[in-house]
């Protein structure tokens, strides 16, 4: 549901973004991305490395973009990947996929196909069994957008 003008203004003032968010825009913002990531992290810090996002740098059709996430981990009982989260910057919602893994996975690698509404940044986060979080980013150029196109 699109927020009313009043709700929108109240919400925007709270996060100081009145001018940054166009009214009625069906697009997530970097602030929404940050918030979604913060919800996953809690008080923990994000470190670069260990996780790799494999996604083509340029795609013609944003309706199905192959995405492979690989995390460097021995996947043992003592040291394994607990979860992988993927977020995007400009789709209507920042969340893409969250997966729960364990030592039974043997290998921390997941592949899927995603929709991208615009040329944008994708962020992957790996949560390890020791409580640390690792991140990687990928930039994708999209020529035909998905998610919000009209059906005609």
């Amino acid at each position, binding site marked *: 549901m699109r927020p009313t003008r009043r709700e929108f203004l109240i919400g925007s003032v709270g996060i100081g973004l009145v001018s940054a968010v166009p009214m009625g825009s*069906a697009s997530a913002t970097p602030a929404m991305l940050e918030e979604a990531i913060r919800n996953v992290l809690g008080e923990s810090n994000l470190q670069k490395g260990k996780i790799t996002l494999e996604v083509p740098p340029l795609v013609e059709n944003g309706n199905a973009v192959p995405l492979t996430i690989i995390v460097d981990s021995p996947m043992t009982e003592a040291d394994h990947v607990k979860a992988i989260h993927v977020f995007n910057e400009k789709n209507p919602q920042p969340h893409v996929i969250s997966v729960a893994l364990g030592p039974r996975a043997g290998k921390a690698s997941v592949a899927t196909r995603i929709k991208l509404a615009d040329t944008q940044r994708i962020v992957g986060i790996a949560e390890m069994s020791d409580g640390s979080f690792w991140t990687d980013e990928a930039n994708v150029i999209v020529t035909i957008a998905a998610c919000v196109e009209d059906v005609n």
Partner: protein
Amino acid sequence: MARTLINVPAKAKRGEVIEIKTLISHPMESGYRVGTSGTMIPRDIIRRFVCTYNGGEVFRAELSPAIAANPFISFFTVATESGMIAFEWRGDNGFAASEHAAITVE
């Protein structure tokens, strides 16, 4: 029942890491598109995917509208024992589908 396509090796060595590929037919309607009548098309997506190996959960995914239509998910698991690998999808409007594949571990 939605059509599904599962790729699980029929045989594996004990302890071998096997790749599992799954595909299910589903529109994954994002809820952000405007239809021919000018109104928003309501959201209709798969929210959850779970894979169990002889009853024990080995993989779980939470999907958002950003997953492409006909969701494809591929992941790995360790072949521990012979038995059944089961898959379950759940989504909006009471959507539910399940599939299973047998595996022989030597």
